[in-house]
């Protein structure tokens, strides 16, 4: 018996809708097995991961807060991936954006600066992220260097830069030698949406980004160009679309969104600059992008779902002593199942008996 792939006549729309659900179901099944291997009650564990965080207002807000950078970055990544340009360095662009925005916060610390500070920080973060992302994009367009490897190398560079700044020139002198800046002034902090809660303006910005992406990808000629360049390069050339320009553009937008997410995280939930401001948002966003099938609405849902698992994972560590690494395993397995199920959209799987095919050999 042999597994054989047959290309479908048309992409199956039912499968396209249903495949993320199948993937999630398969993942839950696999995770249950994993929990049993770890000696934990699977139903209990799944409950702590997925149900409990939905039951109280604080953790609901926390989900939104955690989803904010994931969704923003994933939207940017989806633009790149649709154009067949692989931005893997979103984590680095996030860090650079955080650094750039924090520079303004640190420089104006203690002075009586006005309300222009926060918008300036956000703008600086976005621009810095965009410029940082243009480096790997230019390397690909001008020199043909793999954007996967260059964008990834730059993540390590950004991480080291951040480390240097918070341990050196920007370290809070009153901070007992911890590698962190002083707390940002109120004008340099993201305003809260609900007093006493955690929900901040960043989440609204993320929603706005989702809406913009939905409109751009679905309704504008630019969105169309991005999609065609990735799907059918020769047809794109026939249409007069410039693939190089689109690669640069999508990387710049994606870098800007990652940088923006970075400074929002720092100016919002964290409140100061330190190493480890991101538990790998730039990489988790890759999963969010694929899980959401590179579609803005899908990404919003996927981002919320994965944020849920982050919160659930933290809870599970506390209440059930399940290691945090399980969350990462879950994300990896989920991505595998999503990719595998997505294959069904393009191909039909058939088991055939091994016929004596006249080999051309």
């Amino acid at each position, binding site marked *: 018996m042999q597994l054989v792939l047959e290309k479908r006549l048309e992409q199956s729309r039912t499968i396209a809708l249903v495949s993320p659900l199948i993937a999630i179901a398969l993942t839950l099944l696999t995770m249950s097995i994993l929990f049993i291997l770890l000696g934990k009650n699977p139903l209990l564990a799944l409950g702590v991961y997925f149900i409990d965080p939905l039951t109280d207002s604080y953790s609901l807000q926390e989900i939104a807060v955690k989803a904010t950078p994931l969704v923003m970055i994933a939207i940017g990544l989806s633009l790149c991936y649709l154009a067949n340009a692989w931005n893997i360095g979103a984590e680095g662009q996030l860090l650079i954006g955080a650094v750039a925005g924090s520079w303004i916060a640190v420089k104006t610390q203690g002075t009586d600066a006005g309300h222009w500070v926060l918008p300036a920080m956000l703008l600086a973060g976005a621009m810095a992220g965009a410029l940082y992302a243009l480096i790997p994009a230019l390397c690909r367009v001008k020199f043909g260097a793999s954007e996967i490897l260059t964008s990834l190398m730059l993540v390590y560079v950004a991480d080291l830069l951040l480390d240097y700044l918070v341990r050196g020139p920007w370290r809070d002198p009153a901070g007992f030698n911890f590698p962190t800046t002083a707390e940002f002034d109120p004008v340099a902090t993201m305003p809260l949406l609900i007093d006493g809660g955690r929900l901040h303006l960043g989440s609204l910005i993320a929603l706005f980004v989702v809406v913009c992406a939905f409109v751009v990808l679905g309704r*504008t000629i630019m969105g169309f160009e991005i999609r065609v360049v990735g799907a059918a390069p020769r047809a794109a050339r026939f249409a007069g679309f410039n693939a190089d320009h689109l690669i640069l553009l999508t990387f710049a937008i994606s870098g800007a969104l990652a940088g923006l997410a970075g400074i929002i995280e720092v100016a919002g939930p964290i409140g100061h600059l330190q190493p480890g401001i991101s538990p790998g948002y730039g990489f988790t966003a890759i999963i969010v992008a694929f899980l959401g099938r590179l579609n803005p609405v899908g990404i919003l849902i996927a981002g919320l779902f994965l944020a849920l698992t982050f919160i659930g994972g933290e809870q599970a560590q506390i209440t059930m002593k399940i290691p945090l690494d399980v969350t990462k395993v879950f994300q990896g397995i989920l991505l595998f199942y999503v990719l595998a199920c997505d294959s069904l959209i393009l191909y039909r799987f058939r088991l055939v008996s091994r016929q004596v095919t*006249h080999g051309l050999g």
Partner: protein
Amino acid sequence: MSELLPDDPSRSDMPLLQALGLTKRYGAFVANDAIDIEVDGGQIHALLGENGAGKSTLVKAIYGLIQPDSGELRWQSQRIVLAGPAQARTLGIGMVFQHFSLFENLTVAENVALGLDGSESFNSMSARLDQIARAYGLPLDPRREVWQLSVGERQRIEIVRVLMQNPKFLILDEPTAVLTPQEADQLFTVLNRLKAEGRAILYISHKLEEVKLLCDTATVLRAGKKVAACDPRQETAASLARMMVGTEVKQVKAAGTRRTTVPRLVVNDLDLAPEDTHGVRLQQISLELKGGEILGIAGVAGNGQDELFAALSGERQVGEPGTVIIDGIACGHLSITQRRRLGAAFVPEERLGHGTAPRMRLSENALLTGHAAGDMVHHGFVDAAATLRTVDRATETFDVRKARRDPEAASLSGGNLQKFVVGREILREPAVLIVNQPTWGVDAGAAAVIRQALLDLADSGAAILVTSQDLDELIEIADRIAVMFHGRLSAPLSRAEATREKLGLLMGGSSIVDREPIHAAGA
């Protein structure tokens, strides 16, 4: 490699290979209809016919790649049924395909080794390769990498690969299609040598001059049937051409004499190097096309039609603006979008992947060419309703059959997709339409619709340039016909002058009296 021994069966008068009543159907289409053919040892046997006549199907059956529906094959008078090419090779049948199975970044020796079964050591194979190549005058440096080689040299690898298996019967499919005249001459020397050794050669070609020079006997196929067997050396190229394309006078759809207006498309001395080593260099191409006129370009595929399309459409820019002039505006340096804005429209040969994005819907594919000018895009926003309107209008006007209102391009049949692709351009009411192979791979009904649409468009004053391998089609719709051969364009013949024989000769590379000689293979 030794010659076949004098008493080897293939040297006797008994035919080496026979096909009796060979028939092969693909659905309702009969590719081979009860074909009889006989090939003897020590003979070069030509298989003649136009594209689509059934030559490829016949040789694939002989080589074991496909199974005939009825009829039989005989090898040395014994009935055989071939399970596959491996079995054919054990019998001693070898084939050199038109499309090579080569590896660019590997050496010649490695390429040959990959086509053999690996039972001998690489070094001894390499030595044998060198010896055979030299013996047959096909010099090959075993250590060179394929990407560095010319097309002729690459073909030598394919030939030597076959020769190393000591075949009694050799099939060559359009071997000189992409060779220079000099390379073709070298090939003929080799073939004559093989013939002298007593091997049989089945030589597929449509190039009449070289067939006359090279072949002892010929079988002519037309529309799946064998229509003649002859000795090409006794025939003229003209008589061979007549056998191939038939002498029935087909009724040309009388479009009346069209009113032609000003020149709408002018090409001046277009010279273009190919993008890669497989391409054809365009040389000194000039033409002038008036509004209301259809100019046909005939020619076998691979003589520069793709390169010409890329240069005229703007996918490749030529630098010198005056090389291409549309409606009086020099546009050699303009992009394809800018040319569309000037009123040009284009239909490429490959409808899936080039003319359309296969996995996108028809409305999106309408946007592919429609975004340049027209009402589909406002301030950067796409008017989805306008794209759907185009789909609807194309569907109605050109009878596009599809499963739903707006399906993916890849789900349409070839004919229906082609109607859409041609239709979306015609609906833009272009000043100039450049179309490559308008009805290739399209069913007869759709082809008729497309051709009529082109005629109607010309009637409305547009200038149309049609490149096609189908002579009948060009004779039906074109006012003048020129022929492309090896990157050059002949002077156009008027409808009265463009007889099938003349066109067949030009397509085969022969010169026409009192015209500038186009290089003929072997002439």
